């Protein structure tokens, strides 16, 4: 796990020296090094595009296009920003641009009908979900279950959650990327996290995280 506080307070992490060197080499004309520079972030870039476009093919196109744009504009990158954040912001913008163009906003508009961000939240239950076996994420069905739960969130909650908790952007960066206020980011993030807990905690108690209902290759009946 990467501690959000650490990411917030210490953006310059180990490996950064190598990254800065790569950036300046690419800026200096060694273009073939660009893939090496973005490779550590390709999954984050794809996830950001997917959170917005919700379609694998569109997300891949947007992710590739965003990285080509980053490549074309590498001279504009300044070292006081984190490269990963710059890359993700370009990606988010590319994805939002595509969504506007596709006009899926109209379709997803219904999705935002619940506008009561400020309305009181009440947990569905208080299922005790204390332990996480660290190996849980090794299992594809657990990851799928988590992805599914995320997919049920309204767009505005999902986007904030992905940028903040999966991409590890800070509050301000998330706000800028999505063009909303920091206060909105906080409210939506709280709601997203609580809703996901609601969706997952009960299942956890029933044991779907810790064991399969039946062994692989056998039938449950």
């Amino acid at each position, binding site marked *: *796990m*990467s501690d*959000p*506080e650490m990411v*917030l307070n210490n953006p310059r992490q180990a490996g950064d020296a190598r990254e800065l060197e790569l950036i300046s080499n690419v800026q200096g004309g060694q*273009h073939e090094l660009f*893939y090496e520079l*973005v490779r550590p972030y*390709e*999954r*984050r870039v*794809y*996830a950001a595009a997917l959170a917005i476009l919700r379609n694998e093919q569109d997300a*891949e196109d947007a992710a*590739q296009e965003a*990285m080509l*744009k980053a490549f*074309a*504009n590498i001279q*504009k990158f*300044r070292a*006081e*920003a984190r490269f990963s*954040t*710059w890359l993700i*912001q*370009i990606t988010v*913008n*590319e994805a939002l*641009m595509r969504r*506007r*163009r596709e006009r899926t906003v109209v379709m997803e508009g219904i999705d935002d009908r619940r506008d009561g961000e400020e309305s009181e*939240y009440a947990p569905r239950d*208080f*299922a*005790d*979900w204390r332990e*996480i076996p660290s190996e*849980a*994420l*090794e299992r594809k069905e657990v*990851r799928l279950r*988590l*992805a599914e739960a995320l997919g049920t969130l309204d767009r505005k909650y999902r986007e904030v*959650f992905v940028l903040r*908790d*999966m991409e*590890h952007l800070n509050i*301000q*960066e998330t706000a*800028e990327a999505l063009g909303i206020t920091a206060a909105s980011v906080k409210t939506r*993030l*709280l709601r997203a*996290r*609580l809703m*996901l*807990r609601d969706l*997952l*905690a009960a299942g*956890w108690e029933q044991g779907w995280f810790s064991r399969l209902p039946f062994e692989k290759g056998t039938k449950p009946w």
Partner: protein
Amino acid sequence: MVSHEKLNCEQVWRELSNYIDGEVNAALRSTMDEHFKTCQRCASLLAGTRNVVQLYGDERMLEVPAGFSQRLEQRLEQKVEQGRERRRPRAVASRARWSSWSAWMVPLAAMALFAGTLALVDSLTFKYPAKSILSAPGHDIPPDLAVVVTAGSRVFHVAGCSFIHDKATERTITAKEAMQDGYVPCSRCLRQYLKTALRGQTDADDASADAEQDEVIGRAGH
């Protein structure tokens, strides 16, 4: 602000996310700590919410479709190669002192064909110019109009525009000075002056989206 003497559960839930992110002050934190010690339900909610943050924050949750990396690498290689090919003809010409005229007609024809393909690929791939039409100098902006520029951006705004980034470094100059210094007008607050530049553009939304992308790229995050 809520009284920190004693919190009810709803107040704790409201601050739960900030608590997890370390964004509550020391007083509120210790009051919440007290609450979690005595309230089983809130403690369970906190543990569950932390699990959510931990599970989704894990690198393993970021999956890409099969072949994603190879396709990306190929596309980037192509792009780099394109850049090289564009520079190549000059280099070839300098050492092409072949005796036979027809001998170098072959590579020349091949290069022409290749350049044509590149141009075609380029026109198909890049529908959107890196520089949007909106970032061209605006027309009819009163030269003595007071505008605001900031350190982190090459865009100038009308004071109070909500698209000013890095407000701390704001500086007011005239529109004429801004344009002389290479700043371009904001596509939001100075939109009225950009209408003329938009003539002939079929989809104004795309253009403004491009201008926004330029701004994102230019300001490089904070």
